[in-house]
């Protein structure tokens, strides 16, 4: 395999593994704020127990996020140094800002969150929790700014360098930050995080209820998480819609690939289907005119099709079509699950409906899958560009790094992440099973 394929594989696989954890930190951070907020306002010990239990889980998730995240900060330089030279002036400042404004905040206050229970007052501890949660959200802000600039670059100009190279330089920093896709995509990432965190709490709580353990504890946490899940899932629908609308005019080739839309003209919306890339056809079940309607407000308005782009300027179509549709399908499922849960709660049936509690146990995987699929669609949908319409991914590689070296690092990361993944599941399970009763076993366990 060539260096390009290997570097793409390495980046894709290290970022995908990393991205299991940040959305959980964002969403679980919000849940922690809610739990501790209820404790402070009601003074009930139960909320404190819930907060402490999920803080321990948060600590494990956060450590995984930090361990796998440090790779990302340096991989632009190690594997994509031509890209780094080209965009450093613009893209680098967003990464630096992430460090200055987000990482210090969350990592600093994390120590207080995890170890400060007996050292600081409850109000101060709540403040630390709030700061960690805020820090997790801030880091999403800056990374989405950086990535959105790759999707819809703005606020820059191209400048020739003394050596003959060309690079992008900032002209308007506010335009870089608020480039056309930043806000919609940020909202989308936030909601994906809230879903990941709240469904994780739902899953653990439902499991306790099914096992008839910690009943009151589980019911209280479940109710709070269910409200967050219901709100986030519904808001996610709107943010997804807005995001797709922005894609329709900023990255028309990507939208056309999302929907397998070949011929410019009125466009249907596929519920599911298959793109036959060889014959430029899409087969499946579709609602005529719906894509046109969603994008423009009129069912017969034309939507740019793939025919407007030569094949070398199109992303892999069927792949993007499938990941996008799977993400949307999961998003709809999550709305159904969360709101059906609210309905059962309202009718007083939530604790008796065992099959639904089983659904909740496994629902934790759905936001994870949707978050991954969404990023696959967004990133693969941008291909063949690394910066849309500006730089091709194939021109972004490090010139000095050889395929053999990348293969070595992929194998190393492969083994290590596999090991970490297994250990993470093992420890997470252990914490869930025993985490609530840790005090009695102390001294031996931690």
């Amino acid at each position, binding site marked *: 395999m060539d260096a390009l394929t290997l570097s793409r594989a390495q980046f894709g696989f290290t970022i995908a593994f990393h991205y299991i954890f940040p959305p959980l930190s964002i969403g679980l951070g919000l849940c922690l704020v809610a739990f501790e907020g209820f404790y402070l306002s009601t003074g009930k010990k139960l909320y404190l127990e819930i907060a402490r239990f999920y803080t321990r889980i948060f600590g494990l998730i956060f450590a995984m996020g930090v361990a796998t995240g*440090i790779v990302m900060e340096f991989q632009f*330089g190690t594997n994509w140094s031509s890209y780094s030279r080209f965009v*450093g002036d613009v893209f680098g400042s967003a990464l630096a800002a992430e460090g200055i*404004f987000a990482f*210090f905040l969350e990592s600093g206050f994390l120590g207080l969150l995890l170890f400060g229970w007996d050292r600081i007052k409850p109000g101060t501890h709540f403040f630390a929790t709030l700061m960690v949660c805020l820090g997790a959200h801030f880091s999403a802000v800056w990374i989405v700014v950086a990535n959105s600039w790759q999707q819809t670059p703005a606020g820059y100009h191209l400048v020739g360098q003394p050596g003959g190279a060309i690079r992008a*330089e900032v002209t308007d920093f506010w335009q870089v930050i608020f480039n056309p896709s930043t806000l919609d995509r940020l909202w989308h990432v936030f909601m994906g995080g809230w879903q990941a965190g709240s469904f994780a709490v739902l899953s653990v709580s439902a499991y306790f209820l099914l096992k008839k353990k910690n009943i009151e504890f589980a019911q209280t946490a479940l109710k709070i998480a269910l409200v967050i899940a219901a709100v986030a899932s519904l808001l996610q629908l709107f943010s997804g819609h807005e995001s797709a609308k922005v894609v329709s005019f900023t990255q028309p080739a990507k939208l056309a690939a999302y929907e397998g839309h070949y011929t410019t003209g009125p466009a249907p919306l596929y519920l599911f289907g298959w793109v036959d890339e060889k014959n430029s056809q899409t087969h499946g079940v579709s609602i005529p005119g719906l894509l046109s309607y969603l994008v423009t407000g009129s069912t017969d308005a034309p939507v740019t099709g793939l025919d407007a782009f030569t094949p070398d300027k199109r992303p892999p179509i069927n792949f993007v079509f499938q990941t996008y549709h799977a993400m949307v399908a999961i998003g709809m499922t999550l709305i159904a699950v969360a709101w059906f849960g609210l309905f059962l709660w309202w009718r007083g049936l939530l604790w008796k409906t065992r099959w639904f509690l089983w659904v909740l146990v496994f629902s934790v995987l759905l936001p994870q899958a949707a978050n991954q699929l969404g990023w696959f669609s967004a990133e693969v949908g941008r291909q063949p560009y690394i910066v849309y319409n500006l730089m091709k991914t194939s021109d972004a590689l490090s010139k000095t790094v050889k395929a053999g070296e990348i293969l070595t690092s992929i194998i*190393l990361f492969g083994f290590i992440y596999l090991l970490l993944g297994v250990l993470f599941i093992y*420890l997470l399970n252990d914490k869930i099973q025993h985490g609530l009763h840790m005090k009695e076993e102390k001294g031996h366990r931690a």
Partner: protein
Amino acid sequence: MNFDWQTLWFVLVGILFMGYALLDGFDLGVGALHLLVKTDTERRIFINSIGPIWDGNEVWLVTGGGALFAAFPEAYATVFSGFYLAFMLLLIALIFRAVAIEFRSKQPMKWWRQIWDVSFSVSSIVSSLLIGIAMGNLVWGIPLGADHEYAGTFLGLLKPYPLLLGFTTLALFTMHGSIFIVLKTEGALQKKLKGWVKNTMIFFILCYVITTLATLIFIPRMLTTLQQQPFLFIVPVFNVLAIANIPRNISRGRGWGAFLSSCATLFFLMALLGIGLYPNMVFSNPAPENSLTIYNAASSVATLKIMSLMAAIGLPLILSYTVSIYWVFRGKVKLDSHSY
């Protein structure tokens, strides 16, 4: 006269890496010494002495990397792609270190704890060595092409001088860590650790003298800026004073005095490194005309100005809450139900 934004950012990036060396320096040092204490309680005390703060300390490295990317993208691109395998090893060491701290005390089994104890210690040692070797290569110079790309090999990074700097860095962090851990312990354990400080100090001073001689003999270019700006000679003078102040404080039993002197040592050593390299970021050896300087490696002045604004807002905030958090966790390590 135009304000020299590139020099400002050379200093600021330097401060971030200095912050990393000062703070993560002692927790890497604690890790390097970890296997030398044998009982489970002692090892838990070691890990918990850095438990609430190591993560924040490592952020200095991540932010330093981000700031280097933003302010000097050419240097970031050249160094990280040029040192590819070395950096991959460093990343893997840092990953193992992070999870070892988190995982170790989560299970009671002896073998489990042994595995993570070894991971924690070995990864701390490897990280310190690699950081030193990377700095050593910047001082010695690496072969660069006219296109600013690294023109050497992986093994070419393992020359004697960079290796020497690797060991010096390890010695420095180990000394720094041993002084720190004395502050965090009490009773018999503290007494034992106090004995170690003397050994780590001797190891460091030995490395320091050899490195200084080697630098003076083989890399006189590191003195150019000092000769041009004689007032900067206070830096090496203070450096020597800071080092001499460590044994003085220790013999008088003043732990904090020793720790602050050790911090000052790191501070002045990093300052010396910066002064020696300036105005080069990555010195090209051979073919010095291909060197990356703070001018040909920098981002546009517009970006440097924006970044300066961010630093002006961000750094005071970071310092204020870092100090508060250290304050909360001051005093001896007490193992409780929240500890690792």
